[in-house]
């Protein structure tokens, strides 16, 4: 442990050789300031001789100035970094510390135990292989102990080590330790953690931290450091099936095309059959380029570049996986979400979700429940606020390949980013898929849109009429439908007034309701074109953005926007339904053209000027457009 002695005994070459074979362990320390957490970490650094003399001099000066340990060295001051916190005497964020022994290099995530900083603990826990949970021997299990244990379990930390600290203040009592151990085992078991080790220590006095203590002679187990040096690092289990998110496509020349990424699970060898997800194409491994050249095999925890034997298409965000055990593909999930921002989560708002190397739009439904991290109770919730943990359904705008978080942290854990501020506002863990999109895609292959169109002997499309109330939309649509029907076409006319009696009878005339009105109608129109029909839509549809949305849902040739252009003076003069009069009298609110805007199309596919033509002319004008687009050809598209 002491490298001075090691180097003297073995010589530098042997020392370096030995240290090349060290393993790496990441752990998190959980506990509050009062539990002596900073003192414990300070002690680990101090006793592994990684404190230099100038740092020690600074520490002595700081200890004297702060006066926290009455003349003795305050090891906690080694750990507390930023000026603001040093004045307050608390740590406020996640700090990372490093020390090493002959066996291992350690990366310590140090996070505060205050309730408002659940965010920080979740962050520190996300990369940890092990957790040290500190307990004040005098106080036993506290609310915060439950909270820390819950978060460590949630984030999938394999090894929990309970350090029963301040044993010096309970006269090194075995009884106190055994009680704490029994209570803690019960708590951990209730959260499904069976791998728990309990160790009595005094960080302040240095008992059983790196060296066994005479005062704890009744204790036969390992020291805290001994435990950290020997516990098994399980996360990089290379026995599980292979997963590698594609981070970068490396194409320096036409004769090299490799997929670069960090292997998140399992191992891969030349000749292995791999699948590219979500597409599902397969190939086999031609070569593996590691940091020092070509490799025959590679394992989890390595960054490599893989070349395949076939020209399969794979891009950043895809996952290379063992073809015999592919990850599932889905776009709707049950997830556990930790909210990390002062602005609460807004159900329904679109955020960016980043998982592995993939970013996609996501909307989060109202939480099913949130969890009280102290009691583990499930509470009803409408939203998630800073430091809340809740279970929600989420909906992505495209299917992704995934493993549940408990199967693979890398392909099951995600962050949530605000689209405007770009802040990381939350993080989550995929629990399971609600719906497997690959099944539906597979079903739709048998009878699809072209097949149904062929059966009808026509090319489906949407003729979208827009214009003011009373401009003549429905009249023209009626005549057009009669003509199409006479020509043997299967049509359907969706009329604004009629739909508002049924499908949309819950909607009013506010801007928000108008948007929803058109959204629903465009979805129905899309389903009908999918069914093979020629759909006529006659709606005022006053906003450009919603008409664009309807257009974008279809192929370019399938959407024909017809602007029925009648000046408002004329529509008001005609006032077929007497609505303008009522609007002018204030009896109807939000009436298009009066107190609600109408955004005329900028470049409609057909522009019908009703002041200059008859209804018949208008219908023929549209028929001509349909013909020129080939929509009336007697065969499916």
């Amino acid at each position, binding site marked *: 442990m002491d490298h001075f002695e090691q180097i003297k005994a073995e010589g530098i070459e042997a020392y370096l050789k030995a240290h090349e074979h060290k393993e790496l362990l990441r752990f998190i320390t959980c506990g509050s300031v009062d539990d002596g957490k900073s003192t414990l970490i300070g002690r680990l650094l101090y006793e592994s001789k990684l404190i230099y*003399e100038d740092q020690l001099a600074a520490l002595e000066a700081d200890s004297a100035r702060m006066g926290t340990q009455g003349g003795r060295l305050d090891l906690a001051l080694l750990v507390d970094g930023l000026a603001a916190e040093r004045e307050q005497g608390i740590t406020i964020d996640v700090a990372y510390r490093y020390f090493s022994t002959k066996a291992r290099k350690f990366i310590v995530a140090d996070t505060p135990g205050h309730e408002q900083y659940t965010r920080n603990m979740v962050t520190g826990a996300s990369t940890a292989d092990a957790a040290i949970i500190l307990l004040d021997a005098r106080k036993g299990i506290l609310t915060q102990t439950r909270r820390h244990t819950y978060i460590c379990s949630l984030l999938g930390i394999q090894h929990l080590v309970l350090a029963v600290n301040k044993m010096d203040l309970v006269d090194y009592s075995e009884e106190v330790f055994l009680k704490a151990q029994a209570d803690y085992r019960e708590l951990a078991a209730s959260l499904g953690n069976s791998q728990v080790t309990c160790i009595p220590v005094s960080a302040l006095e240095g008992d059983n931290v790196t060296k066994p203590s005479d005062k704890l002679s009744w204790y036969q187990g390992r020291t805290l450091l001994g435990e950290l040096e020997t516990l098994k690092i399980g996360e990089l289990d290379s026995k599980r099936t292979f997963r590698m998110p594609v981070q970068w496509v490396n194409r320096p020349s036409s004769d090299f095309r490799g997929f670069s990424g960090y292997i998140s699970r399992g191992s891969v060898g030349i000749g292995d059959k791999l699948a590219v997800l979500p597409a599902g194409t397969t190939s086999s491994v031609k070569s593996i380029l590691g940091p020092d050249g070509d490799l025959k095999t590679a394992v989890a925890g390595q960054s490599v570049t893989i070349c395949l034997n076939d020209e399969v298409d794979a891009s950043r965000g895809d996952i290379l996986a063992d073809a015999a055990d592919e990850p599932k593909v889905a776009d709707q999930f049950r997830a556990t979400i930790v909210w990390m921002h002062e602005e609460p989560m807004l159900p329904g708002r679109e955020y960016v979700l980043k998982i592995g190397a993939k970013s996609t739009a996501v909307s989060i439904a109202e939480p099913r429940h949130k969890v009280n991290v102290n009691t583990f109770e499930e509470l009803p919730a409408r939203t998630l606020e800073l430091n809340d943990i809740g279970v929600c359904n989420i909906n992505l705008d495209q299917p992704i390949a995934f493993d549940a978080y408990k199967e693979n942290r890398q392909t099951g854990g995600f962050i949530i980013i605000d689209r405007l501020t770009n802040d990381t506002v939350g993080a989550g863990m995929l629990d399971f898929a609600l719906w497997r999109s690959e099944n539906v895609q597979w079903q739709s292959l048998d009878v699809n849109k072209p097949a149904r169109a062929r059966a009808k002997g026509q090319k489906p499309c949407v003729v979208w009429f827009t214009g003011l109330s009373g401009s003549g939309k429905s009249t023209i649509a009626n005549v057009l439908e009669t003509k199409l029907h006479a020509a043997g076409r299967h049509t359907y006319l969706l009329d604004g007034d009629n739909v508002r009696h049924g499908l949309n009878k819950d909607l009013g005339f506010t801007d928000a309701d108008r948007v929803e009105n058109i959204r629903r109608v465009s979805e129905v129109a899309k389903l009908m074109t999918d069914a093979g029909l020629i759909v006529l839509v006659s709606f005022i549809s006053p906003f450009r953005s919603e008409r664009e949305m309807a257009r974008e849902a279809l192929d370019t040739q399938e959407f024909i926007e017809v602007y029925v252009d009648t000046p408002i003076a004329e529509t008001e003069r005609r006032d077929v339904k007497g609505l303008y009069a009522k609007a002018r009298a204030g009896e109807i609110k939000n009436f298009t053209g009066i107190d609600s805007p109408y955004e005329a199309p900028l470049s409609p596919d057909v522009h019908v000027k009703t002041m200059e033509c008859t209804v018949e002319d208008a219908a023929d004008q549209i028929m001509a457009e349909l013909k020129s687009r080939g929509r009336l050809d007697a065969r499916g598209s």
Partner: protein
Amino acid sequence: MSLTHLERLEAESIRIIREVAAECENPVMLYSIGKDSAVMLHLALKAFAPGKLPFPLLHVDTTWKFREMIAFRDNLAKEHGFDLIVHTNQEGVAQGVNPFSHGSAVHTDIMKTQALKQALNKGQYDAAFGGARRDEEKSRAKERVFSFRSAQHRWDPKRQRPELWSTFNTRTNKGESLRVFPLSDWTELDIWQYIHLKGIPVVPLYLAKERPVVERDGVLIMVDDDRMPLEPGETPMMKSVRFRTLGCYPLTGAVESEATTLTQVIEEMLLTVNSEREGRIIDFDSAASMEKKKQEGYF
């Protein structure tokens, strides 16, 4: 097959470097010529092999670097055909700013911090790699791997984005940028071990050699050129010295040493009693000085 700590550090750094190249529009790698930069550059080359580096290198030259550093830099760039951008704060040069008459704080601010901001603004980079390590200094321990900077390049320790797993948020709005530290989890010992293991070339100043030095306030300063004003009665002495960190020669303390090979340097480092930054005069100016500098835009 279990990976060693250096293999894991290497893989994680490569992942970080690739992520920036994949997601940022216009990244740049700060190359300071020192040992950390040497490792970072080595890892970047591995990340994109057999392809070339997909971003340029940027060196902020204060005009007071050791001559051997500049020679090393130019050789390396030529040998590999790197796209190397060298930026110097010309206003500072015109004003004659130097570490002797202006002091280390003013010199560092104008020729380093301000120069860096100028270079980043000029190139409109949305991400800049730096070779800083968290073990270097206390305030660095809380630094993120992807450190977010405002359009004014300011670092707000309270407004850093949480970093979970290795899923990094690389998004910025126009004018904002990221400082990215792929070596965050490496320690000084890791760096030297890796250089030793992989045979990475470093500036010879890291190895002991007879060099002309003067002693000022207990610090050995190398007289690298005749711009250094000697005080009355001061004459440079030849001493076997090496440097633990490299920067502006008037601000970099040498250590007396006989270590002429890399292994000897590592041995000395392991047996030494003073920390690496001790040789950096800029850190002496005030307590928590690094934190202040970082808030103002220093790397």
